[in-house]
């Protein structure tokens, strides 16, 4: 789903400005010093609004990388179908 991935990259770019799309794809909270709890909350809010979904607060701590968000979105899309 390239379109979904592009939208997700834009969400990440809005919270972590200055990263290239390739860098964003490799992003995770451990490798990025600026990915703190505030960034997590902001990122979750941006993604919830952008994809019109509600992220369970219990799941949020596990969404600690671009890959994790992509997988989560894929799963949510499949569940909706």
């Amino acid at each position, binding site marked *: 789903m390239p379109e979904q991935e592009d939208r997700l990259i834009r969400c990440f770019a*809005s*919270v972590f400005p200055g990263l290239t799309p390739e860098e964003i794809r490799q992003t995770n909270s451990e490798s990025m010093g600026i990915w703190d709890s*505030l960034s997590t*909350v902001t990122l979750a809010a*941006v993604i919830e609004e*952008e994809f019109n979904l*509600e992220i369970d*607060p219990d799941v949020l701590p596990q969404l600690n990388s671009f890959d994790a968000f992509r997988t989560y979105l894929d799963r949510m899309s499949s569940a909706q179908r």
Partner: protein
Amino acid sequence: MKLIEALEIVKRPVADAAPGTKVFLACGFTPLHLQTFLAAHFRELHPEVRLEIKTGRFGDLMGNIERLNPSEIDAVAVLMEWSDLDPRLGIRTLGGWRPADLADIVESAGKSGMRMQRAITGVSQQVPAVVCMPTLPLPPMFPTRPIQAGALESQLHRIVSSAAEYLSQVPGVRVANPQLLAEMSAPADRYDVKADLTTGLPYTLGHASTVGAVLAELIQNRPAPKGLITDLDDTLWAGIVGDDGIDGISWDLDHHTHLHGLYQQFLSSLAGAGVLVAVASRNDAALVERAFERKDLLLSKNDIFPLEIHWSRKSESLRRILGIWNIGADAVVFVDDNPMEVAEVKAAFPEMECRLFPKGDYHGIWKFLRDLRDAFGKPLVTKEDALRLQSIRDAGAWRNEGGAVESNSDEFLKSAEACITLDYGQSTDDARAFELVNKTNQFNLNGKRFTESEWRNFFRDPASFMLTASYRDKYGPLGTIAVVAGKMHGRNAQLHTWVMSCRAFSRRIEYQCLKYLFENLGADEINFDYQATARNGPMQEFLTELLEAPPASGVSLKRDEFFARSPALFHRVEVTVRA
């Protein structure tokens, strides 16, 4: 605005040299996305300003306001929610909602409301304060069904309403209008319980965006237009007076033309608040004269000046009106029902806001009047507002009797029986002085504009002073028309700002201001922070005449030079010195 858009707007670069504004966002909850939305909306309104937002401690709105150091900020935005009045009015604390608890909650909220009122009033003495009263619903804590208003719930609303009423009358405080907020953000869509409990921000993203937009609008006052020029047929009234006759035009419910009555009533309201209103109509002047004799017109002919009624092009009428008002096209709104006329005027004056009158459009008239109110709205109406139109009429009499530039003769000025009232001090709560400084273009030393906090900061220096001049003569009063602001360094007066309304030209008031500085302040020399601007030609001409050379940045004038070059002054001068 979506959060992703807000984040993208905020990260747009701002020029290094951009002026900065520091705003303290005072709230008792986590500002989080609200802070982002406020920054984004502010950036949209003021792309050239670098905004810095400071925030306080979670759960302590009162303390955040009371601990504030106003000298470190340019404005404060206070966001009050019910839980700031008593934590039990929110859902993050579990203090009890038993019926026996409720009276205590209301009493505690009342005390908090009073304390908040005092704290905001105190801060507003030094920096402008923007206040948003509770926007979220009260929790389901009352014994009555939610559809029924209980006494205690009503008391809570009264506490908030009283505080809003009080604060809205405090100079320097601007309270967000809850009615407008309700239009922009539906009350049922504002509260995000999950976000409140998980992040501490109780607002949905949509509501956070709306509140951010409202605060951004309120933080910096924008200058209102000075005048409105209106068409007559099918605009001020329904019908064509030349075809339908004097009795055939209407503005009432019976003829289904009430919209025009609303427009007349609105223009009358604008005129009462000091907005200049003129008429430009391609029409028969004699017929229009008779139409204005109708007793049921809601806009008095006395509120209109001038009336340009003839068959020439509209743009020619507007050019003449602008000349008489002596203001720029960018300070005027033009209203006409004819798209061709609107286009012709817009082509002649691209900088003028030209509006099509929504003839026969019931929904359109509401938006039209709201838009006009938004453009012309001002925080308060000053006594000079009531004088403005009359003084422009009087200026016509002044010119006719010989007061125009070339006939600025001693004899004529002597016969004018002029009186100038000079008010000297450091008063920063003179709204008229602040308004003059920020809207005068022609007789303006350097074109510098001030924010409210810059203006107040300027007068924190004990060396600073402000001199205002009010004027009246046998042709009528002009009100406060000149402001001089500067600093005394020993026997040297440094003028940072000097403006005078164009209505007051040719009366030698500017000489009287300088004379006061030399004679009463004991200045030996006056230094002018002069800067040429695209529009301050009259100031350039005055200084050229006084200095006997074209002015340059940092020019100065010695006492003996002034008295040698000043023309004779015939005013009676009254002086008030404030501590």
